[in-house]
């Protein structure tokens, strides 16, 4: 019972503070908070399109977030989802541009498989460097993000460039992830993401490999004592995570943009890290957190269009919520203290 009240108080503190910050930001921009709240909610639930857009934006966050959560639980701190997403998109572009006659669904499947491989290989580099030589994956994954981004820039100005114009982008790609909710942009990539939630949950909770990964993540020495191959586990975790991020990038490519562009990923690889954290590295948590972040984006975009509220509010609130979460221990302590004082 006591625990329950603490949970409620904590939820209230989180929501209260977040809403307070949002209110201040809206007031600062010279708009009415109540009117904005209406616009925000209508932006998400007011139309089929808005609602579908939330799921569209959630898909890459979900996929990359799942990949990152596997890494976190296995002790592989992957902040390279951004780069792995670009590598996945590059590989998918190459396969999609391959001028061979085949049924579209086979072509798309091949492109997605290539994306998984490319993302996985990109993460394999820091994975093997950590497993074999103990080099910190944090710096390496970060460096590989920028290398992948610049590689994309080079390729779309070179071999992958659309030869019919001068813009730095690939030609429009034929194979695409099929739409699943006619007038909206929602595509099969979202279903794939849901499927992966299930798959990752199964892997981590119901297979020996998942068990081994978790033991390695919580205590390497214990893992060694149990005879688990720690090196192998780290490499597996890094490659799976990179592969999922690769699919996330390819989903954006084949489901939304249909061309390889420089802004294709645009920072969602970093947001996905926060999604994994907020989802407590649990697949279902990641599912919920990715939809939450996506809803925040869609609602805020509507506020920007209709009320002129700077869209920067999304980054502010995202960062703020995560910082609050990092201060969780402090918040709990304050709540407990309050209660003790109240009881006395």
């Amino acid at each position: 019972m006591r625990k329950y009240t603490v949970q409620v108080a904590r939820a209230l503190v989180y929501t209260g503070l977040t809403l307070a910050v949002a209110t201040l930001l809206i007031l600062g921009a010279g708009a009415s908070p109540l009117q904005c709240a209406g616009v925000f909610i209508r932006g998400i639930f007011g139309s089929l399109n808005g609602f579908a857009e939330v799921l569209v934006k959630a898909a890459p966050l979900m996929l990359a977030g799942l990949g990152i959560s596997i890494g976190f639980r296995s002790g592989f701190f992957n902040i390279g989802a951004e780069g792995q997403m670009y590598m996945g998109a590059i590989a998918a572009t190459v396969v999609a541009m391959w001028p061979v006659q085949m049924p579209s669904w086979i072509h798309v499947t091949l492109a997605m498989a290539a994306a998984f491989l490319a993302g996985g290989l990109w993460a394999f580099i820091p994975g093997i460097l950590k497993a074999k030589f103990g080099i910190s994956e944090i710096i390496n994954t970060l460096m590989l993000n920028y290398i992948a981004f610049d590689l994309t820039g080079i390729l779309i100005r070179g071999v992958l460039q659309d030869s019919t114009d001068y813009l730095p982008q690939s030609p429009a790609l034929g194979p695409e992830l099929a739409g699943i909710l006619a007038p909206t942009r929602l595509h099969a990539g979202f279903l794939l993401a849901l499927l992966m939630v299930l798959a990752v949950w199964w892997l981590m909770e119901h297979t020996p490999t998942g068990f081994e990964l978790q033991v390695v993540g919580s205590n390497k020495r214990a893992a060694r004592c149990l005879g688990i191959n720690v090196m192998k586990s780290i490499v597996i975790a890094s490659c799976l995570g990179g592969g999922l991020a690769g699919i996330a990038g390819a989903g954006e490519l084949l489901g939304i943009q249909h061309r390889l562009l420089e802004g294709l990923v645009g920072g969602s690889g970093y947001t996905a890290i926060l999604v994994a954290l907020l989802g407590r590295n649990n697949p279902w948590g990641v599912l919920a957190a990715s939809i939450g972040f996506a809803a925040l984006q869609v609602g805020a975009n509507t506020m920007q269009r209709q009320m002129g509220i700077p869209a920067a509010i999304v980054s502010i609130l995202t960062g703020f919520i995560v910082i609050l979460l990092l201060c969780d221990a402090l918040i709990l302590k304050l709540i407990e203290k309050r209660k003790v004082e109240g009881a006395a």
Partner: protein
Amino acid sequence: MEQIFTLAFLTSFLSAAVSTAIPLAYASMGEIYSEKAGILNIGLEANMLAGAFCSFAVAYTSGSLWMGLLGGIVGGLAVCMLHAFISVRLAQNQTICGIALNIFLLGISSYFLKILVSNNPAFPQVATFPKLAIPGLSAIPLIGEALFNQNILVYILYLLIGISHVLLKHTQWGNSLTAVGEHPRAADTVGIRVYRTQYLAAAINGMLGGMSGAYMVLAQLGVFTENMTAGRGYIALAVVIFGRREPIRAALAALLFGAAECMQFRMQALGIDLPAQFMNMLPYLITMIALLGSIGKQRDPESLGKPYIRDAR
């Protein structure tokens, strides 16, 4: 082609390279203190953005460049102390905190810029620190112009590099800092105040990060623009690794990376047919190669990124 490699070209190239390198050098020097004390702060971008925005806002409202610099230092300090509080006192994940701060500062600085701009018909601008030629030294051919005809913030940096080198390598305090980053429990046992040392290192990191951002506004551009650091905080992290956490080496690494950035704009003039992105990529590539080359030799501080919990067994 030969004509391009004239003294004039090289002089102006070096001058630009030094100027580009200064923010990297400031930020990476701060990070060296922090990492030596065991705190891996990925949020350099946040420190720099805070420094850039606060220096701009203060310089614009007060009309004084020096007040602006102070504002930048305080801004960087505030953000970095929040990171330190979360990583030292609350023992939370330092990398996540850094990323969250980066995203938060990106948002908050663009938000306030929008408000500042919307209240102004003209885009707000501030003056920049003038160049001060050091008599004699600035007349040295080739490097004189680049190194000794710069603004005051550059000379302050030279001074700080020297001080940091002595402080970190030749003083008791530098040794305690290293001890805290290597083995905080042992350091605690011999009477070093671990938390205080880490907070102090973070404070230095924040102030230098703030100066890095302030330099971009008050010496380079005279304006604040959205996301104006554009990933330089991450390059500064690479500088720290490539510079092996030594101030002088890091300054040279910053110069190298600065030169790579300046090269982008000059490659076409030199007739080199490579995409600009290739030069962009170079710092990250050589940092990874440097990490590879360090296998078995130099390594990270033993407790880098791991919170020290005093009461734990």
